[in-house]
């Protein structure tokens, strides 16, 4: 029997039980229109468990962390530091010292770009971007993993290069050898495209980058919420992701870095809680992660994000990924059958994540989104902070549906039916 040889498929998610944890999903948009939330790639909703964890903390242990000697401050510091360890564990990081909290993934990527550009020559040349160096990114990056590197290039005189996109919506690696060279100091790429759903071959690319001595920075914003990710195992050197895309609070992001990297990088933001000694003349800085956490941190948000990790792990990230794979297949197949609709992303037969972007011939995504919204179907329209990617495919924008643990197949069907209605609606005016 072949069945016994197949890897055990994770048990399917009990989506209706899950939805019971997300009060917002019962909301009506108006008297007749229930909410069909298909914009989880922008921000996810939060289960009661996450809200409760924050409230419990705030009504029991809230105090300033790290600075206080009293019992309440110790309870708060414990909660905060346990959250750090919990969140690290979620992405395979055993040492909490490697996890620094930022306000979002964007800040984490900026911190890396600023620290790598700091001219201080006491750290290894390999970790200092300066004139003549190259920074490599890809044409599918979110602005958050593009503009900070452009700015680093501007500040330092380094050159920004990028891996182009191929017709099949994956990276075109044909010229990789001439793009990734001894001159490349940093290679920053996304794990999953937030538009195409493309999953990049990160481990392979990271090892190629390490051969030429480049540092590898991963934008893990769209992978960590949707599949099991072990950052150290991927072989990258640093990574960034955001709490609000993985059922956690806004206002918290994660910067992960290997010990030797963080130990050498200078701070970017400075102030309280990240110092060792301060005189009016001179300041020395604390070890990581404190060095990267100036000022009062996102305390209750860290607690909330740890609860989100608990929630996701209780479901099982493999089950989450399988669930979203099913939704993605249904959406891609259903949409592709509609006249004039073209899905902008790889075939469902490839490894492909659950951002389903599409174009309706002759119709601007804003108009498409407006009609879908009138039916309660909430999708994202525009360039999704990946303008160069859209230019590459000659598109002003796309309409994107994206999913999470609480998304149902009925919602996918509402999207497909909705697109049918969009097509009919505009046909009236032809």
């Amino acid at each position, binding site marked *: 029997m072949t069945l016994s040889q197949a890897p055990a498929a994770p048990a399917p998610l009990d989506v209706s039980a899950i939805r019971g944890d997300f009060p917002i999903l019962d909301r009506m*948009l*108006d008297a007749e*229109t229930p909410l069909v939330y298909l914009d989880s790639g922008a921000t996810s909703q939060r289960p009661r468990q996450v809200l409760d964890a924050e409230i419990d903390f705030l009504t029991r242990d809230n105090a300033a962390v790290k600075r206080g000697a009293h019992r309440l401050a110790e309870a708060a510091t414990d909660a905060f530091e346990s959250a750090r360890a919990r969140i690290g564990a979620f992405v395979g990081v055993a040492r909490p010292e490697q996890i620094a909290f930022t306000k979002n993934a964007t800040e984490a990527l900026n911190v890396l770009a600023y620290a790598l550009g700091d001219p201080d020559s006491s750290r290894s040349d390999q970790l200092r971007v300066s004139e003549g160096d190259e920074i490599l990114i890809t044409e599918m990056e979110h602005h958050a993993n593009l503009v900070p590197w452009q700015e680093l290039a501007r500040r330092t005189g380094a050159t920004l290069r990028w891996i182009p996109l191929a017709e099949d919506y994956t990276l075109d690696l044909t010229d990789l050898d001439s793009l990734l060279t001894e001159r490349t100091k940093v290679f920053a790429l996304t794990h999953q495209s937030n538009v195409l759903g493309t999953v990049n071959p990160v481990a392979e690319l990271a090892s190629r980058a390490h051969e030429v001595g480049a540092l590898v920075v991963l934008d893990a914003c769209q992978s960590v919420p949707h599949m099991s990710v072990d950052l150290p195992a991927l072989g990258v050197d640093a990574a960034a992701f955001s709490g609000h895309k993985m059922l956690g609070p806004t206002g918290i992001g994660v910067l992960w870095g290997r010990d030797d990297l963080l130990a050498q990088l200078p701070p970017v933001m400075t102030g309280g809680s990240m110092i060792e000694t301060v005189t009016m003349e001179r300041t020395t800085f604390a070890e990581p992660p404190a060095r990267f956490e100036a000022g009062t941190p996102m305390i209750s948000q860290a607690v909330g994000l740890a609860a989100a990790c608990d929630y996701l792990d209780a479901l099982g990230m493999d089950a989450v990924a399988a669930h979203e794979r099913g939704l993605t297949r249904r959406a891609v197949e259903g949409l592709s059958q509609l006249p004039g609709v073209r899905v902008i992303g790889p075939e469902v037969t490839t490894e492909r994540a659950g951002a389903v972007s599409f174009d309706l011939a002759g119709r*601007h*995504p*804003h*108009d498409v989104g*407006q*009609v879908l*919204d*009138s039916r309660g179907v909430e999708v994202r*329209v*525009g*360039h999704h902070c990946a*303008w160069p990617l*859209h230019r590459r495919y000659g598109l*002003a*924008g796309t309409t994107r549906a994206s999913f999470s643990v609480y998304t149902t197949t009925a919602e996918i069907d509402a999207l497909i039916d909705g697109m049918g209605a969009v097509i009919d*609606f505009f046909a009236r*005016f032809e």
Partner: protein
Amino acid sequence: MDLSSLYTDIVFEHDKRPLHAGLREPFEAEVHHVNPTCGDEITLRLHLGGDADAPVVEDISYDATGCAMSRASASIMSDLLIGHTTSENEPVAEHLDRVMHARGEEQGDEEIIGDAVALQGAAKFPNRVKCVLMSWKAYQSALIEARGALGWSA
């Protein structure tokens, strides 16, 4: 939700057959405006006639990509403003601006803004207000530039 207040026949008429579209010579100013949230863009050229005291909009030519609302708005605007003095045009732009920011609480006056009353459905959708107003903002920037280029500062 009532889509018909937003997508009227007039809007689609202008969307399909935009008036004054294309980029033409002569012009004193060319501006490029974008709506960063949705990526809509307009390149707009303005050609003034008349004199420093009473400039006349001789031509507005443009190249616009965007949603139906934004394209219709550019078409309606150019048709409304061409052939009039800039001071005649001022109350038109002001009235539309007020209506568009009133969230549907204020009705547009067809006497003043003509076909642009067809755009007012967007006022109920704060996100669409920007679509409608992008071309009007472009006209305003172009006017400042054109006056500067002609030495006709206001």
